[in-house]
C-alpha cells in the first residue's frame, strides 16, 4: 500500500513549502540582524569595542518623550534638557548655560549653549526649544506632559541662542519640569521632517548617545555621539562617553534577568527584587548599590466616607501600624519607615521634623481613639491592593496589624488597570499605594480638591489644603516654594490624610566589568566617566 503516485509529490511539496517559508522567507529580518550582530561581535573583538548591556523587564511603546509617559530609559541619553540635576539633586545648567528669572517670577530668560549639534548635524538653537515646548502644549499632540507646562503662556525666540518663557503665574517648579526626561529637546519640525518614522525608527536629540536600532520588545541599541562635548559642568567627563554602545535588553522573566546578570549577559540591573539581594551580595562579581528611593508607600482611605471622615479614626489607623515590622516582613528589612508625605531624598522640600510630628506605633492609643470616635466595638472594612506579590504581602500584614486594634478587614486584590478603575469609581475604603516621583508637586496630584476623584483617590477635599498647596506652588522662588510645601506637610500630618509606611530602597546590581559606577538619584549618567572592559 504505497502512496498514490500523485499524492506523494504533493505532500512533499506542501511540507517543503511550509518549511522554506518559515525558516528562510519570513525570518529574513531576524537573519539579517543575526549576521550583523555576529559581524559586530567580531569587530568588537578586534577594535575592543566597549558595550554595556542593561536589563529591563518591559519595553516602552513609542520612543517619543512628547507622546507617552511610559518612557524608555534610552531617551535619557538621546536627549539633553535645558536644565540638569547633579548628584546632590541640585538644579544646574544643561543646554541652557544660564537663566534669569524676573522678580515676580513670571518671565524666565534662558541663554543657550552655542556649540551644540543635533544627531542629524543641525545646530541647536532657540527655535528647537520653542518647537518642543509648543508641540507638547498643542492639544492635538495629546501629550501627557502638557499639564506640567500649563504655567507657560508663551515661548519667545529672542535670538538664535536666547529664549524667553512668559508664565501665567509664578511657577518655580518649572526647574523640575524642564529637567525631566519628558523635557528632552527635539529638533524643530521633527514630525514634518521624519513623518511617521519619528519615535519609531528615528529619534533625534543632542545627547551623548544616538539611537542605532530599536526592536520593540527585544532591545534598543545606542551608539555614542562622538561630537558630544557639552556635558554639564558637574560631570567629571564632559566630552564623548567612554562606552561605545549601550544595549537596553528586555528580559521579561525575573529569574532569567538574574541568571543573565550572573553569567555576565547583562552588566547592570535596576530594581533588583529584595528576594535576590542576598544571593547577589554573595556573588563576588556583582555589587548591589542600595540607596533610598524617591518613592513612598502608604495606606490610604476614602476620607469622604464613614468612618474615615473622623480625624480620630485616621489617627488611630496611623497609630496601629508598626512600620518596622512591615518593612521586615515585606522587604526583608530593606527600606526606611516613612513619616511624612515626601521621600527624604527631596532634601529641599522634605520636612525634617516629620518623625516627631508623626504618629508612633501605639495600639493602645489607637484603640482609645477608636473608642472616642464611637467604634469601641471595632470596625469591618475592605482593604484593596493591586495583585503584585509585594502589595499582597503588604495587605496581609496590614490586615494583621489592624486586627490588633479591632479593625477587621477583607482583602481585595485587583490587576493594575482594574485597580485604577476601581479607585476612579470611588469604591475603595482602605487601600494600599506606592508612588514614585521626585518632586513635591506629587502632593498637588493626590490631594488638591480639583483632582477629585482621581488622582485624588483618598477623596480629600479640603479648602485649607488647596490654599496651602496653591500658595506654595506659586511662590516666586524655589526656596520659598520649598518652605510652602513644608507647611503643607505639617498640616497633612496633623490631619492624618494618609498613613505613610515605607521608603523603599533603590537597588541597582552592577557587575565587576563596569568601572567607575556612580549612583545618581534620578537618571544614571552612563556618559559621565562610566567605563567597561572591552569584550
Amino acid at each position: 500500500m504505497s502512496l498514490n503516485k500523485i499524492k506523494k509529490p504533493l505532500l512533499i511539496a506542501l511540507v517543503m513549502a511550509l518549511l522554506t517559508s518559515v525558516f528562510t522567507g519570513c525570518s529574513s529580518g531576524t537573519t539579517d540582524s543575526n549576521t550583523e550582530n555576529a559581524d559586530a561581535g567580531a569587530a568588537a573583538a578586534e577594535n575592543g569595542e566597549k558595550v554595556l548591556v542593561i536589563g529591563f523587564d518591559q519595553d516602552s511603546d513609542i520612543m517619543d518623550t512628547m507622546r507617552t509617559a511610559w518612557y524608555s530609559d534610552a531617551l535619557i541619553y538621546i536627549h539633553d534638557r535645558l536644565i540638569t540635576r547633579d548628584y546632590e539633586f541640585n538644579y544646574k545648567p544643561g543646554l541652557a548655560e544660564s537663566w534669569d528669572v524676573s522678580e515676580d517670577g513670571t518671565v524666565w530668560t534662558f541663554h543657550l549653549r552655542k556649540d551644540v549639534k543635533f544627531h542629524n548635524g543641525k545646530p541647536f538653537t532657540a527655535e528647537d526649544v520653542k518647537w518642543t515646548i509648543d508641540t507638547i502644549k498643542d492639544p492635538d499632540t495629546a501629550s501627557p506632559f502638557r499639564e506640567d507646562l500649563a504655567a507657560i503662556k508663551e515661548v519667545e525666540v529672542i535670538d538664535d541662542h536666547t529664549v524667553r518663557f512668559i508664565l501665567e503665574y509664578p511657577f518655580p517648579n518649572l526647574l523640575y519640569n524642564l529637567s525631566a526626561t519628558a523635557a528632552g529637546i527635539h529638533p524643530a519640525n521633527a514630525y514634518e521632517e521624519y513623518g511617521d518614522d519619528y519615535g519609531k525608527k528615528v529619534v533625534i536629540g543632542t545627547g551623548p548617545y544616538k539611537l542605532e536600532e530599536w526592536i520593540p520588545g527585544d532591545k534598543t541599541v545606542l551608539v555614542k555621539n562622538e561630537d558630544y562635548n557639552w556635558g554639564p559642568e558637574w560631570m567629571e567627563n564632559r566630552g564623548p562617553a567612554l562606552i561605545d554602545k549601550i544595549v537596553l535588553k528586555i528580559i521579561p522573566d525575573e529569574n532569567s534577568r538574574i541568571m543573565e546578570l550572573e553569567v555576565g549577559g547583562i552588566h547592570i540591573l535596576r530594581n533588583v527584587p529584595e528576594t535576590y539581594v542576598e544571593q547577589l551580595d554573595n556573588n563576588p562579581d556583582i555589587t548591589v548599590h542600595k540607596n533610598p528611593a524617591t518613592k513612598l508607600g502608604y495606606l490610604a482611605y476614602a476620607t469622604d466616607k464613614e468612618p474615615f471622615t473622623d480625624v480620630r479614626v485616621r489617627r488611630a489607623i496611623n497609630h496601629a501600624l508598626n512600620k518596622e515590622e512591615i518593612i521586615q516582613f515585606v522587604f526583608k528589612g530593606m527600606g526606611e519607615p516613612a513619616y511624612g508625605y515626601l521621600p527624604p531624598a527631596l532634601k529641599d522640600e522634605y520636612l525634617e521634623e516629620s518623625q516627631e510630628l508623626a504618629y508612633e506605633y501605639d495600639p493602645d492609643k489607637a484603640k482609645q481613639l477608636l473608642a472616642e470616635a464611637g467604634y469601641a466595638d471595632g470596625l469591618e472594612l475592605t482593604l484593596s491592593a493591586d495583585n503584585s506579590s509585594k502589595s499582597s504581602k503588604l495587605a496581609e500584614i496590614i490586615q494583621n496589624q489592624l486586627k490588633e486594634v479591632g479593625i477587621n478587614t477583607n482583602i481585595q486584590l485587583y490587576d493594575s488597570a482594574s485597580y485604577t478603575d476601581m479607585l476612579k469609581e470611588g469604591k475603595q475604603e482602605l487601600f494600599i499605594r506606592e508612588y514614585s516621583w521626585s518632586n513635591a508637586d506629587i502632593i498637588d496630584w493626590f490631594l488638591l480638591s480639583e483632582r477629585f476623584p482621581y488622582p485624588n483617590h483618598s477623596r480629600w477635599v479640603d479648602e485649607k489644603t488647596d490654599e496651602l498647596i496653591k500658595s506654595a506652588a506659586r511662590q516666586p522662588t524655589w526656596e520659598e516654594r520649598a518652605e510652602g510645601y513644608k507647611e503643607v506637610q505639617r498640616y497633612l500630618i496633623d490631619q492624618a490624610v494618609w498613613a505613610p509606611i515605607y521608603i523603599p530602597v533603590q537597588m541597582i546590581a552592577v557587575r565587576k566589568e563596569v568601572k567607575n559606577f556612580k549612583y545618581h538619584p534620578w537618571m544614571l549618567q552612563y556618559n559621565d566617566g562610566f567605563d567597561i572592559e572591552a569584550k
Partner: protein
Amino acid sequence: MLKYIVKRLILMIPVLLLMTLVVFSIFYFAPGDPVSRIAGPNVTEEVYKSIQKKYGLDQPFVVQYLRFLKSVAEGDLGISILQDRPVLEMIKERLPVTLQIGLLGFAITFAIAIPAGVAAAVKKNTAVDYLCMTGSLLGIAVPTFWLGMLLLYVFAYKLRWFPISGDGSFKQLVLPGFAIGLTNAAITARMVRSSMLEVLKQDYVRTARSKGLLEKTVVYRHALKNALIPVITLMGLRLGWILGGSVALEIIFSIPGIGRLMVDAILSRDFPVVQGSMLVLTSSIILANILADILYAIVDPRIRYG
C-alpha cells in the same frame, strides 16, 4: 477535494467574526484602557480625556467595533494604540520566531514519538515498552513552562551551551523547541503505540507477514502509515496548543514572539493588537485542522471529500 477546502475556508469567516466580537466585548467592558499607560499615573482628567479622544476611545461600542472590522477588511488589522503602527506589521515581525519554535518543537516531537511509540508497540510488555511509557508518563505530567525553566537552568545557566535570553541566533530556538517537543512527544508516543497495536492485529498485517516480507517493511510501510491517521488529527489540534503554549516559553527565554506580543497587549489593554494576534492564532488553528483533514486523504485512500 478543492470544493471541500473552499467550503471549509468559507466556514472560517463566521467563526473568526464571532471570535473578534467576543474579544472586543471583553476589552470594551473590562476595566482599564490603554490611555492609562500613555498618560502615566499623574495626569488630569482633562488631559486623559483628550488622549482618549485622539485615539477614538470615547466612541460607542458599535462605532469602535465597526471601525475595527473596516481595518481588517482593509488588510492592516488596525493600528496599535500604544505603538502607533499597523498591527499587521507588528505581527509580521513577531510571528516567524514563534513559528520557528513551533516547527522545531513539531520536528522534535515526531523524531522522538514515532520511533518510541513503534518500538513500544512492537516490543510490547518488554523493558523497552515500559521504559518508553514511563518516560512518556513523566513527559505528560511535566508542564511545558516548567520543563523550559529546567532546561534553561541546566543548559544555559549552568553549562552555558545556550543563551539565557533570546539573542536572535538559531541557538535561542533549541531549548524552547525541546521544551515543546519533549512534552508533546510524550502524549504523541502513547498515541502511536496504541494505534500501532491496533493496526498490528489487522488481517492485512498478517497477510504481509505471511507473504514473507521483512518485519521492518511490515512495520514501517504497512502498519505505521495506517497507525498515523489518528496521530495526524492529534497534531492538528496540538498546533494551536503549541502556539498558545509558547507564550510562557517566550517569556522565560526572552524571545519576542507573537505570544509575548499578545500578553503585553492584554496587560496594557492595547486591544487592536490583541485582536490582530488572536485573529492570526485562531486562523492558524483552523487552517491546521483543515490541513490535517487534507493529510488524511493523502495518507488514507479510503477517505475522500466530495
